């Protein structure tokens, strides 16, 4: 396989290159988390006709920095009756799992931290690793609310993995590959070649457009559930469970949960971008194409979906646990089966 990492091309395959490659996503993640936290505060404020943070720098733009400085200084409480090793480990597992997802995300045609050809599978596998941290945190806190939150989170994420896996299966069928770069390359050209519009091919795909649309919506809904965002934020639903699984966490450990949540938001947005919206491809053929612009397109597309998640959060009420299961098993799953069949037919017809 041809090497797609510009770092290797520049300084060769040595340990410095590996260090740079593994650190680049971390730098990106930190920068992104700050922007996303500010975005969450500001967008929620504007939706509610408020201003949001205003008194930290011009228009409050360095508010997230202040948050980080503050969280660093907070006392790190471990409850007396908690299971200490598990309690301390949980946030790190959660963060590590979401950071591991960044290993295969292709930011550009010239840069992907690890160009394995099982990218989609890896994302699916690592994405469900975070639950362990969540359950650990909920259980080890020795708090009834945390326990309920942790249990709910596991039930929720496990059930929503299945519709999400169906979607990813469909994409694997349509692209004939699990390699993320390959999937993106197949969607090159104009925006109608994206998988959300049925992928490249003849006019026959117009008949199948609704199915690919529904598939996209199913994945968006499932991704909301996987990142515990409203309307599926019951694991940390304030009005019922105080703060859910992270009720007992304070200081930096809470910040890790916080960071992991935002990192997860980006990962699912990146997956949506990759499998449905053409990854780093420019929507307009060769216009503003190329590897450098690729980063721009990829990040801005992903940010649109991060914005969508924030937007939904400040619009919708929260579902109940049994209704959540209903949506997953009785709505999303049958629909995804039907769409899977239809899109497989499309692949055969092509």
């Amino acid at each position: 396989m041809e090497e797609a990492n510009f770092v290797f091309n520049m300084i060769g395959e040595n340990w410095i290159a590996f260090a740079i490659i593994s650190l680049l996503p971390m730098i990106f993640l930190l920068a992104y988390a700050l922007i996303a936290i500010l975005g969450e505060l500001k967008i929620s404020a504007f939706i509610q006709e408020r201003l949001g943070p205003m008194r930290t720098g011009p228009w409050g733009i360095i508010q997230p920095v202040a948050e980080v400085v503050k969280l660093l200084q907070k006392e790190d409480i471990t409850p007396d009756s908690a299971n200490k090793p598990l309690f301390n480990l949980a946030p790190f597992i959660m963060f590590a799992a979401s950071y591991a997802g960044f290993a295969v995300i292709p930011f550009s045609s010239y840069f992907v931290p690890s160009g394995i050809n099982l990218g989609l599978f890896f994302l699916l596998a690592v994405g469900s690793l975070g639950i362990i941290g969540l359950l650990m945190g909920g259980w080890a806190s020795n708090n009834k609310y945390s326990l309920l939150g942790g249990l709910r989170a596991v039930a929720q994420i496990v059930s929503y993995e299945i519709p999400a896996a169906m979607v990813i299966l469909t994409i694997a069928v349509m692209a004939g590959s699990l390699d993320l770069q390959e999937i993106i390359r197949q969607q090159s050209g104009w925006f109608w070649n994206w998988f959300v519009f049925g992928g490249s091919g003849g006019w026959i795909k117009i008949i199948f457009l609704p199915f690919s649309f529904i598939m996209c919506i199913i994945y968006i809904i499932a991704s909301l559930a996987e990142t515990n965002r409203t309307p599926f934020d019951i694991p940390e639903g304030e009005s019922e469970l105080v703060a859910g699984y992270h009720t007992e966490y304070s200081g930096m450990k809470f910040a890790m949960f916080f960071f992991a949540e935002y990192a997860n938001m980006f990962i699912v947005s990146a997956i949506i971008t990759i499998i449905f919206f053409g990854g780093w491809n420019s929507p307009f053929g060769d216009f503003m194409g190329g590897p450098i612009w690729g980063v721009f397109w990829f990040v801005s597309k992903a940010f649109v979906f991060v914005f969508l998640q924030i937007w939904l959060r400040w619009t919708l009420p929260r579902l109940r646990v049994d209704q959540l299961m209903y949506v997953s098993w009785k709505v999303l799953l049958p629909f995804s089966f039907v769409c899977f069949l239809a899109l497989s037919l499309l692949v055969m017809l092509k």
Partner: protein
Amino acid sequence: MSEKKYIDIEFSQLDSERMRLFMGPQHPSTHGVLQLEVELDGEIVTDLIPHIGYLHRCFEKHAENMTYPQIIPYIDRLDYISSMNNELPYVMGLEKMLDIQVSEKVEYIRVIFSELNRIANHQIAIATFGLDSGAFTPFLYYFRDREMILTIFEKASGGRLLYNYFWVGGLAADVHPTFKEDITEAIRIIRDTNAEILNLLLKNKIFIDRTANVGILPADIAISYGVTGPILRASGIPLDLRKAEPYSIYERFDFDIPVGNGEVGTVGDCWDRNIVRFREMEESCKIIEQALKTFPSQGDVRENVPKRIRLPKGEIYCKAENPKGELGFYIISDGKDKPERVKVRAPSFVNLSALPEMSRGYMFADLVMILGSVDIVLGEVDR
């Protein structure tokens, strides 16, 4: 999705350990400092005991030690969301005892301000209910509108939340000159927002799923518990003291009593309670508009009342339709300038007693919604 029957059959066969969960008093969604001792079977509520008294502020003890006008600030603090409504039955009762007839203008202002405060109260009720269900944005839209009502009150009385405005024999002060225009403007914006909230929250499918068929209170049980106010009306009984026993000048106005009719679920569920409150806001707007049309601009706002108010020996029970139900004051006077006793019949307290009946057999997440739909104020429950 959430029929009560289904849960009963499914879980009564399984014998499992019950969990006791103490919810509150510092839980974010207990609407103040209420403690609920919940017995859970998995996620199903099997029993519920409300523990009150975390905000017991000794109202009756204070009433024994104060002169009649001095009690009014404490009455404000009973149901601190609808202070104007609280003051109304008390001053009406005293005026009846003293045989004082207040002027037309005072009656009009009292009605208009009571109805405005009713709107403000229902706004908070629906807003915090939305907050319980996870929708944060309607809360802020309603609070934005409520700010206008508070401004009108502040311009008239000087207080933003606790007014001390209805006095025995009149009002503390005359209304401000731009009073009519302000209220017309406020009503216009309240109606706009209400239309928005209807689409954003009340008609939302997720919201309907959360509230329809949840916390059903049948009419007969509601009556046997003595429940009043929007909760009783949501159960299908059109009892409103403004119509049933008109006080002040309510019989002059034309308005309807919205009742719950189970549009999306069963009669008397959480959704009905909210839609009744929602429609009452519109009725209040109608009353205010009619009152503004015939508002007498001339007139004195204060009758001649002796500086030391001494009630004749005797007792009186005076009541009015508060946003939360029937608020009554039972005043016993022994001829001095201080009452011998003032007993409060607080609607929230009575409505809260029906909570265990409403919430048995529903899920823990529903409990939060049911409590929110009862719309209690702890200041009034504990007094």
